[in-house]
């Protein structure tokens, strides 16, 4: 079966089940999911919520590249990468990556590769809102 790569940027709440179903087929024995959620603390400060700004067309292209590289590098079946935009509250889901494979090592490796690379290359920016202000994460030296 052909590898399927799916990437989504959504203003709506992300559903783990949707992303799971997206990569699940009867050939796959293992599915690894990574779910990134919003913590209530960062460096001792109280976080109230995040705002994600996205350069959407380029972000989708970069997410697709990650999917393609994952398929090329690891023996996986399907990969889906879903990312939120806009307001994301504490405990809410910012990102879900799901990878299916016939044997399980590949889905772990590809999933970790995908989240690591997403954080380096995909043009999405997180503004963290604290009790006492807000700032763009990682923007300052």
């Amino acid at each position, binding site marked *: 079966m052909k590898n399927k790569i799916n990437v989504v940027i959504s203003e709506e709440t992300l559903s783990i089940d949707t992303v799971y179903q997206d990569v699940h087929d009867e050939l796959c024995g293992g599915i690894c999911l990574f779910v*990134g959620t919003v913590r209530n603390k960062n460096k001792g400060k109280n976080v109230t919520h995040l705002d*994600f*700004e*996205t*350069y959407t*067309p*380029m*972000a989708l*292209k970069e997410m697709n590249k990650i999917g393609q590289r994952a398929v090329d590098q690891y023996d996986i079946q399907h990969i889906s990468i879903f*990312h939120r935009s806009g307001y994301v509250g504490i405990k809410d889901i*910012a*990102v879900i990556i799901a990878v299916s494979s016939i044997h399980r090592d590949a889905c772990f490796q590809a999933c970790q590769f995908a*989240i690591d690379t*997403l*954080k*380096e*290359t*995909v*043009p*999405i*920016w*997180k*503004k963290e809102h604290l009790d006492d202000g807000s700032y*763009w*994460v*990682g*923007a*300052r*030296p």
Partner: protein
Amino acid sequence: MINIKYFGIAKEIVGNDVAFIESSTISVADLRQRMNEQYKAFKQIKGYMVAVNQEYAIDSQIINADDEVAIIPPVSGG
């Protein structure tokens, strides 16, 4: 004129999500220099990438008038 999109902290510094530079063709390196002169606060950013037509560009790349150019401060998705 070349239209440039700004995101994240760069958008905050520029005060808008699109701005222009008076040029028909320019290298990425020269664009960076003009940006840094025009927006002194860019020095406070950890650095930024330039994207041309939604692809990361190296300094020697030439930008033309109808290209889609974007200033990409350090990304922080995930």
